[in-house]
């Protein structure tokens, strides 16, 4: 198989893509482009997600489940009371004596208070569970962010160190070369 055949085959297969790539914006300085994109990414995050992240961090002290339980228990007792009242009417009083009616009311009241107490207690546990889980996840995210930041700093520091070493090496080489050159010239001047 000749090289010409391979070239023509690949040109046929990837001709369109090659056109697309050549129509793309030329990047002559990838380092500068990368620096720009990194800055833009961080700006995007700050503008769009920083406030959201802060709200989520505040959500670890959320009390909405407990508040809801406090509101909900009396509401449900009232609904159940309505259901019971309608059912009694449906059965024409259901043959209930006054004592039975009173006992029903007492049971409803007792149930209502128990619901409130039990509901709020359970809600406290659930709220703690949600808040703890959110906190754990946020800590995980924070660790990821921290690792990424440390990696970025480490890379920058390593690159700076490499540059400093290269500069020192270059200076030493230059000095050595100059010394060598001076020595050669001196020796040549004295005809040694």
């Amino acid at each position, binding site marked *: 198989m000749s090289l010409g055949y391979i070239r023509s085959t690949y040109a046929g297969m990837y001709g369109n893509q090659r056109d697309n*790539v050549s129509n*793309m*914006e*030329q*990047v*002559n300085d*990838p380092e500068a*482009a990368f620096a720009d*994109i990194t800055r*833009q990414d961080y700006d*995007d*995050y700050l503008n*769009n*997600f920083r406030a*959201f*992240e802060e709200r*989520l961090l505040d*959500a670890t002290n*959320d009390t*909405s*489940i407990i508040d*809801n*339980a406090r509101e*909900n*228990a009396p509401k*449900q*007792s009232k*609904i*159940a*009371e309505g*259901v*019971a009242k309608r*059912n*009694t009417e*449906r*059965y024409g009083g*259901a*043959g*209930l004596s006054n004592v*039975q009616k009173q*006992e029903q009311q007492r*049971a*409803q009241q007792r*149930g*209502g208070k*128990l*619901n409130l107490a039990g*509901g709020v207690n*359970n*809600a406290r546990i*659930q709220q703690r569970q*949600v808040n703890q*889980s*959110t906190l754990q*996840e*946020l800590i995980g*995210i924070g660790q*990821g*962010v921290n690792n*990424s930041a440390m990696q970025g700093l480490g890379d920058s520091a390593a690159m700076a160190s490499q540059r400093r070493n290269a500069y020192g090496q270059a200076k030493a080489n230059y000095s050595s070369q100059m010394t060598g050159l001076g020595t050669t010239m001196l020796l040549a001047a004295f005809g040694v």
Partner: protein
Amino acid sequence: MSKPKASAYKASESEKATASIGLADKKFFREAYLPKLKEARDTSEKQDYTGVAEGRGNADTMQALTDRPTLAATRSVDSSANLASAATGQAANAFFQGTVGKREDQLGVLKNARGLANTATAGLARAGKIETSNLLAAATAKETRRNAMIKAGGRLGAQFASNVGDANAFEQAETKAGIDKSEDGVRKSADQGSFFEKGFGGIDIAGRGEKYT
């Protein structure tokens, strides 16, 4: 040996193509995906999954406990309190599930924004999977037991009436055949009141009994 040339250290064509593709992809991401992620952020904050979950939880409770009102339940002292208790438990469970779903969505968006993970939508899925609370299960069980006892009572009554009827018929047949057992202490049917006649004095027991079968 010639001096090093700067042109020899320029980016190769391959490097330039890779950088161009990276830049184009990045621009596309910014135009197409970033708005979607912002949309997901807003949805995760504004969407009220708790309302959806509570609605479903409440519907489950009412369907389970008030679907077919019975006289026994209406007369019972504690059925109303049980209904309130079950509804409260179910609503609390629903609110909890809704909150958990919302948090999961929000954390997913944040992870994505921080470039740590993919966004996964869990909130609505969770809201659709409210587990039946213990209180609703207990109240339903109580209701079922009450209805079962009424059914069993009805069956027993029907069977008792049927047995009495059979006994009467047997006795009447014996009387017709001339068998008098008065000496053995067994009363003849003629002496019995109408209550012990088939059908409790004319009431259609079989008809009533069928209702409970």
